[in-house]
């Protein structure tokens, strides 16, 4: 299979993206974001989960949650490059929301065969929120690593680093069974589910670890049968990495533009600081890095629809490039804002912290390159 020249980015996708950008500019300007997530600056504050559920309901009405749900399950079934473009806007706004977690869950569900899958996808399209509960305590990102066990119809154990867990209604949990890995849908309200919020650097999301104390699972909740879980997750994984890469690109562009604007206006030595090449050149280097990352992200997203056999490698490229560009931009934005950039009041730190989180999430750049090398060398 080959990719379409335009990445599959059609007029519907463009309209969706443009509408999303304007909507977020109107509904969550930077000052509103700051008020929403940064009202408590105490570094020892209890874990927070600051978001705007009313805004999320509007987002559901705008149809963002239908994008990746196939038409057969009641969704819009748009090309995945449209989902990547949306994720980029979400990153540009540093939107605290269940969007990314739910989109990642959607991508996993698309690969599932279990009887309940179609209904759950339909519910997600209609606004039900979900997240992946697939990481063990060690933080290992590999599919096989698992601290949750499915035994005699009950879940025991834990899942860690669960993204936006406190905003999710359903957990898509990976569980080890004697016949192999399974994927299971578990409502967060199910008896025996205990959510413990983490204190994290990123103020624009929440994270938790989840203990499962003998949570009962019936067959309708089995999304991927024991033994089928690993292949299912692996098939979805390029999409999940692409989403995070897109968020990094969007937030990275915000940091680039915000810093460029500061460099066009802040004066020292009787000139705007952008005059100095110590500022100008790194900003241009950042622009180049971000452009590579963004192009690679669209490439990976397009591959998900058109050449899935290449998607694993292309998604690793995208996440690696975006993680590096994201971290570099996060760093230069603070530095080039000088003293102001080191203050809580200046919104730059909100984006910097989101970038550091996404840089790490599902593996940083050198982790991605190591996996890419395994794919390209064949070992």
């Amino acid at each position: 299979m080959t990719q379409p020249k335009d990445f599959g980015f059609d007029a519907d996708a463009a309209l969706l993206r443009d509408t999303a950008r304007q909507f977020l500019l109107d509904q969550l300007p930077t000052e509103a974001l700051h008020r929403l997530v940064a009202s408590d600056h105490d570094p020892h504050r209890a874990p927070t989960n600051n978001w705007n559920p009313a805004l999320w309901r509007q987002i559901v009405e705008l149809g963002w949650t239908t994008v990746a749900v196939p038409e057969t399950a009641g969704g819009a079934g748009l090309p995945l490059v449209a989902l990547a473009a949306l994720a980029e806007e979400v990153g540009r706004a540093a939107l605290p929301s269940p969007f990314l977690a739910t989109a990642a869950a959607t991508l996993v569900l698309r690969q599932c065969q279990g009887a309940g899958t179609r209904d759950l996808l339909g519910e997600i399209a209609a606004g039900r929120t979900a997240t992946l509960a697939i990481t063990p305590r060690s933080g290992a990102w590999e599919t096989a690593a698992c601290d949750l066990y499915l035994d005699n119809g009950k879940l025991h154990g834990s899942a860690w680093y669960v993204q936006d867990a406190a905003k999710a209604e359903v957990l898509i949990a990976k569980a080890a069974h004697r016949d192999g890995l399974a994927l299971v849908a578990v409502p967060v309200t199910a008896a025996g589910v205990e959510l413990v919020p983490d204190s994290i650097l990123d103020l624009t999301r929440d994270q938790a670890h989840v203990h499962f104390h003998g949570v009962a699972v019936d067959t309708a909740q089995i999304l991927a049968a024991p033994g089928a879980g690993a292949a299912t997750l692996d098939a979805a994984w390029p999409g999940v990495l692409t989403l995070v890469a897109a968020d990094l690109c969007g937030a990275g562009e915000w940091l680039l533009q915000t810093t460029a604007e500061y460099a066009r206006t802040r004066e020292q030595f009787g000139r705007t600081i952008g005059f100095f090449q110590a500022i100008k050149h790194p900003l241009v280097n950042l622009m180049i890095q971000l452009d590579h990352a963004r192009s690679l992200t669209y490439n990976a997203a397009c591959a998900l629809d058109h050449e899935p056999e290449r998607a694993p490698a292309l998604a690793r490229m995208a996440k690696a490039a975006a993680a590096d560009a994201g971290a570099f931009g996060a760093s230069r934005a603070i530095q080039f804002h000088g003293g102001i950039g080191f203050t809580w009041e200046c919104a730059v730190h909100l984006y910097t912290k989101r970038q550091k989180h996404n840089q790490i999430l599902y593996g940083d750049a050198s982790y991605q390159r190591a996996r890419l090398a395994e794919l390209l060398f064949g070992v």
Partner: protein
Amino acid sequence: MSDQAKQDRPEQAEFRAQCRAWLAANPLPEPPVRLPQSAIEIMHTAQLEYLRDWQRQAYEAGMVGCDYPVASGGAGRRDCQLIANQEMQRAGRPFLPNILGLGMAAPTIQIHGNDFQRENLLPRLFSCADIWCQGFSEPGAGSDLANVQTRAERYGDGWRITGHKVWTSLAHFADWMILLARSDRAHKYEGMTYFVVPIKANLGKTVTVRPLIKITGETGFNEVFFDGLEIPDHYRVGEIGQGWEVAQTTLLHERGAGPWVTPSSGRGGDPERNIADAWGLLELARRSPRAGRTAADDPVLRDRIMQLIIRQEGSRQGARRARVPALCDHPQRIPLQAKLVMSEIRQDVCALAMELQGAAGTLSIGDANAPEGGEWALGYLNSYGVTIAAGTNEIQRNILGERVLGLAKSK
């Protein structure tokens, strides 16, 4: 015997032994609260009082300001401060809190001040009876420090200060400030005069201190407003209109390049743990799972850790070489690199630490599962304080290019 001790002169060796004996005989009680990573992040009086008490003890034991003349509150020793610093570090002691006083105000007053200032202000500075802050930066005068607009006007025999300083570390606790002010608006560089000004005594009157919050959520720096503060002329440091030259002495010391060695001891947080130190990455990597093994098994990460250890040792050996003039081509070449290089190594070390931690790198200070209590991530954020403060690293590169390599001035 340590490498350091082998080369001591007899009186230095004797002093080192004294320091060691005193430190061994006088252990510090455990801090009552978590200590911040450095003095400019002290937020609470409980932190300050513990550290202040430590500095007072260290002063009374002769380890703070010992190279300064007796008349200035010192011990009149020669080349002994470095030894005291080495021994305090070796003993794992926390940092000295009066960092802006010790590192900047003291050498400036010693070199440019008058007898009144040296005799009355320095002993209390060394003992930490008085906390000092530095009032240089203003909203419009950061990198372009010579653009300060805070006014110093003649008023009878003295001066009246009006203006707005910003990013003033420790001002919330400060008794005194070193102040760069404009005494003549007609001249940029020749129009500045340097003062010492009492802050705490005038709070609520002609001085207002407003805390600013850092990206870490910590406080520690402030805005300071002067609304006609009146001070006598003997609070002036150096000649009228010579403020810029006097300030150069302050800045040289701030960047670790001045002739007076700044009294300093350990680091913050938990001294047992090598937070923000490249060597600390070895242990962290051994403990961090990575692709089915540990980060210490990953050749790429091993290489990156080795790069940082080499850079850090390069910089440490550089500090050593800078004290051997015969091995240096230019007296300022290494000293002027000190803050630039150290701050960037620290930033890169903390950034790599967060990568090594993998998923756990998302956790912040106070999370029960964060490696080393989240101090690495906090150190990463705080590292920007250092790459920006004391003249940004961009400005440091300009200075090195211009003063050492003779490149054209960029402004």
